[in-house]
């Protein structure tokens, strides 16, 4: 049993490191962007090409470069083409989701490692006491 607990503790620590690494990697790929619906040709002809914003600017992790419009908005923020996202069935991942899930996973794996080490230590102590 103590051997199994040691395995569990190390597996939890390994998971902790993997989660942390994945979180760091995704955070490094995140960019501030505004989802926008580009106007159709009729609207553009009359009211200009300013797109309709969908929600507020967020930090998104989007690997497909074609999802971004070539022009930034008036605040200098990148623009994510909602029509492209809908066409390709892409739901853009937000950095805050990565951080939220990452934080839960890190706490979970850390707690599991501490518990496994703790229980193993108690068991070994009990066994040593019995042997003495």
């Amino acid at each position, binding site marked *: 049993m103590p051997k199994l607990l040691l395995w569990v503790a190390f597996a939890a620590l390994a998971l902790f490191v993997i989660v942390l690494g994945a979180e760091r990697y995704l955070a490094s790929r995140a960019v501030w962007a505004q989802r926008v619906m580009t106007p159709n040709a009729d609207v553009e002809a*009359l009211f200009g090409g300013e797109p309709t914003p969908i*929600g507020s600017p*967020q930090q998104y992790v989007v690997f497909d470069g074609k999802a971004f419009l070539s022009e930034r908005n008036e605040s200098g923020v990148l623009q994510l083409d909602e029509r492209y996202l809908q066409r390709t069935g892409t739901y853009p991942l937000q950095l805050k989701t990565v951080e939220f899930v990452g934080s839960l996973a890190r706490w979970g794996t850390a707690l599991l490692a501490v518990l496994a080490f703790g229980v193993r230590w108690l068991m070994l102590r009990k066994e040593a006491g019995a042997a003495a």
Partner: protein
Amino acid sequence: MAFQRCALPLLLLLAAAASHAQTFRVGKEAGLPVSQTVTVESDADFENFTGITHGVSGVIRIDPAKKTGSGRLEIDVASIDTGVPLRNEHMRSAQWLDTDKYPTAVFETTSVRHKSGDTYTVTGRLTFRGVTRTITTDVNARLIKESAQSRAARFRGDVVRVRGQFRLRLSDYGVRIPDIAKGKVAEIVTIRFDVFGQTG
């Protein structure tokens, strides 16, 4: 009797002359070549999600001379799409938007005051989930007169584009967020609208 016969059309004519208000029809039945957009954004810990609907219909009346107007818009709440089918299903349930019972939200203006340029301060009553509350917000209303360009863009008559946003507290309209969903749905959501109307 003859006087009455003449007076009524005359009064109607005078009333029409005194008011230069134009009526713009909004929505699919108005035959507009563009879609309306209303978005609902929830800024929660887990993520910001935005629901989108193009189901908006109604009328907007604008008097350019007096720089005032009025309007009534109906939003198809049941057609709001958040990009996740399961979330849409939950959102339409009785606990949330209860769209079987309240499929639409209605906004009706009570006062429109010109602020500056194309900006107007609009106050109106929003009825959503059977609850009516007053909302005041600034909107941008851009009017385009009928022209060869507007006709080429397949619009009929004069065209108006109205854009704006306001925030609403879900609990004001009877939506109680369960504890389990507290990090996923915000108590206060932002509504943004971008609607078009045409007179023809």
